[in-house]
C-alpha cells in the first residue's frame, strides 16, 4: 500500500508543478504589466502633479513644494459637472455604437452562419481583412470619404438644397465619430455572433416550424434568445474599447467633440496633470467594471448551456 501512496503523491506533486510551469509565465506577465501599473495608477491619483508634468515627490523637505498624498483630484472630479457630462456622453456614444454594430452585424453573422460550410471561412476572412491595414490609416480614409468634397457630402447637400435646406458638414461631427467607431468595431461584433450562431442546431428551427412558428417567430423565439451569449460578448468587445477610444474622436470629431478617452489623453499629453489623468482612468475602469457586472447578471439566462 505504502509505495502506491507515495507514487500517488509524487504524481500529484508532478501535476501541480506542471500546472505552475504552464500558468506561471502568464501570471507573472499579468502581475508585472497589469497589476503593478494599476497599482501605480491608483497611487498616482492620490498624488500632486509635478511642476513640469509627471508627479510631485512623495517626500520633500524643500518648503513650498507640494508633496504627500491628497484627495484633491477626486474632489476636483466631483466638483465640476462637466466631467460627469463627458462620462455620460461617452457612455451614450459607446451605447449607440454598440447598438448600431449589433444591428449591422447580426444579419451579416446570420448570413455567414447559414452559408454553405465552404464559403464561411472566406466570408470570415473578409470580415477581419480590414485588420490587415493600419487602424489610423483606415480612420483617416474616412476623413476623405466624409469630407466636403466627397461624393457623399455633395449628394446629401444636393438633396438638401432641393428642399431649400442649409448644407451639412459630415466631417468633424458626432455623426463622423459614430461612423468611425462603428466601422472600426464592427468585426468585434460579427465574430462572436457568428461563432454563436454557427453552433445552433438547425433541427430546432425545423421543430419550431413544425410547431407552427413562422419565419419571424422562429427568429424571435429561437434564434435570438439562443444567441444572447454571442450578443453579450460582442457588446462587451465593442462597448468597452469605444468607451476609452480617443483616436477616432480626435481625427473625425474635430475640436468640439471630447470623450473620456480624449480627456484622459489630454491630462497626460496636454495639461500634464498625471494625478487627474489617473483619477479619470480609475473612474473609467470602475464604470467599465460596473457595466461588465451588469452584463454578467443579464447574461445569467445562459445557464441552459450547462
Amino acid at each position: 500500500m505504502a509505495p502506491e501512496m507515495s507514487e500517488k503523491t509524487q504524481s500529484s506533486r508532478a501535476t501541480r508543478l506542471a500546472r505552475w510551469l504552464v500558468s506561471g509565465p502568464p501570471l507573472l506577465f499579468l502581475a508585472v504589466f497589469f497589476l503593478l501599473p494599476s497599482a501605480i495608477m491608483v497611487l498616482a491619483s492620490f498624488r500632486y502633479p509635478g511642476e513640469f508634468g509627471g508627479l510631485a515627490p512623495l517626500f520633500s523637505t524643500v518648503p513650498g513644494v507640494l508633496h504627500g498624498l491628497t484627495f484633491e483630484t477626486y474632489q476636483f472630479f466631483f466638483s465640476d459637472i462637466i466631467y460627469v457630462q463627458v462620462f455620460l456622453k461617452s457612455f451614450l456614444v459607446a451605447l449607440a455604437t454598440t447598438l448600431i454594430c449589433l444591428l449591422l452585424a447580426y444579419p451579416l453573422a446570420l448570413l455567414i452562419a447559414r452559408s454553405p460550410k465552404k464559403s464561411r471561412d472566406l466570408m470570415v476572412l473578409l470580415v477581419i481583412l480590414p485588420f490587415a491595414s493600419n487602424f489610423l490609416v483606415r480612420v483617416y480614409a474616412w476623413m476623405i470619404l466624409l469630407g466636403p468634397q466627397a461624393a457623399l457630402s455633395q449628394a446629401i447637400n444636393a438633396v438638401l438644397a432641393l428642399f431649400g435646406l442649409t448644407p451639412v458638414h459630415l466631417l468633424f461631427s458626432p455623426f463622423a465619430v459614430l461612423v468611425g467607431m462603428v466601422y472600426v468595431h464592427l468585426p468585434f461584433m460579427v465574430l462572436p455572433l457568428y461563432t454563436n450562431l454557427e453552433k445552433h442546431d438547425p433541427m430546432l428551427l425545423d421543430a419550431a416550424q413544425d410547431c407552427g412558428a413562422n419565419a419571424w417567430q422562429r427568429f424571435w423565439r429561437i434564434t435570438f434568445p439562443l444567441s444572447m451569449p454571442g450578443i453579450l460578448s460582442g457588446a462587451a468587445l465593442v462597448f468597452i474599447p469605444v468607451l476609452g477610444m480617443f483616436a477616432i474622436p480626435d481625427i473625425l470629431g474635430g475640436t468640439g467633440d471630447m470623450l473620456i478617452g480624449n480627456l484622459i489623453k489630454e491630462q497626460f499629453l496636454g495639461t500634464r496633470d498625471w494625478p487627474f489623468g489617473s483619477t479619470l482612468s480609475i473612474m473609467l475602469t470602475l464604470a467599465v467594471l460596473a457595466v461588465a457586472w451588469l452584463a454578467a447578471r443579464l447574461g445569467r439566462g445562459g445557464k441552459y448551456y450547462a
Partner: protein
Amino acid sequence: MAMLEIKNVTRRFGDFSAVENVSLSIESGEFFTLLGPSGCGKTTILRMLAGFDLPDAGQILLDGKDMVDTPPEKRPVRTVFQNYALFPHMTVAQNVAFPLKMARIPAAVQRKQLQEALEQVHLTDKAAAYPHELSGGQKQRVALARGLVSRPRLLLLDEPLGALDAKLREEMQVDLINLQRDVGITFVFVTHAQVEALALSHRIAVMRAGKVEQVDEPSRLYSAPCNRFVADFIGHINLLDASVLQAAHGHHVHLDIAGLGEVLAPPHVGLASGGKGYFAIRPEQVRIGVHEEVRELKNHFSATVQQFLYRGDVTVYKVRLDNGMVLEALLPNAAPGRARLFEVGDTVSVGWRHDAGVFLVA
C-alpha cells in the same frame, strides 16, 4: 376515404430515387409504421408529410385536401424528432406549450391543455425543469407532449426510441401504445427496428430502396411475408432453395428442396409447377428432437447439431441437414433443465408441420 392518402409519390435527389411511386392510405386513429433499412426512403416520406420536403410527383392528401401548398407551420401535423429537438432555453412547460402559443390559443385554454399533456406523459413535476436537466426518457416524453398538446390530425415519429437504452425503450413502447390509444391521434412511426414495429403498429409498410414491399398487419407480415426481402428483414427465418413439384394438391403444395427431397407446404395462390423460389420457415416452427418425437410430422429430416446459442428464454440450435444446408431451430426454455438438450455433434431429427412455412417465388 382514408384520412391520409399518399398517391404515387416520387421524390428524387439528382439521379437517386429516394421514394419511387409510393402509394399508401392511412386510416384515422391508426398506428402506422414505415419500416425499412436506412436509406429506404421512410424518412423522406415523413419529411414530405411534415412539409419539409415536397414530392416531385404524386399527391399527399390529408382529409381529402392536397397538402402541397401548405407550409409545415400551417399543417395540422406535428413531428417528434429523432433527437427530440427540444428548445434548450425553454422549460419543459414552455416547450410543451410552444405550439399552443404559436396558435394563439387563449391563455386559460393553454394552461388546461398544457396540464393535460404533461399528465399524459407523467411530467407534471418536471414542468419548471430545463431540457438539459432531464434524462433521455424524460426528454423523449417532453417531445411527445409537445407533439400531442395541440391535438394534431397526425403525429409523425422519426425513430423516437432510437437514442434510448434497451430497457427504457421497452417501457416507452408500452407507454406509446397506451398514449396512442388514449389520445386517438393517428401516428405515423418511422423505424428500422423491426421488433419495435411489430410491437407497436396496427399496420406496417416495409420499404426497400424507395419502394413499398408489403403493407400488412404485424402478424400477417411475420407469418406471410410476400417476398424474400420482407421475410428476411422481419425476424429470423430459414430460407431454403426450393422448386414447386406439384401446385395446389388438396390442402398443400409439394415442394422439392434441393438435395433434401419432398416437402409439404401450405397452399399458395398463383403457384405453377416447376416454379423456383425459396421455402421460408421461422426457427420457432422447426421442431428438434430425438427421432420418435419428430417422426410423426409430415416433414422431417435427420441433421447434426452444429452450434447452439443459449439466450436465456430460448436456446437456438443450428443444425446441418444432410444436404449441407444449415437450419435454425428454437427451443423455449420454459421447463427447468431444458437449456441444453443436445450437444454439438449429436444426430437429431428436425421437422415441421405441413401447414408451417411459406413458399416465396424467387
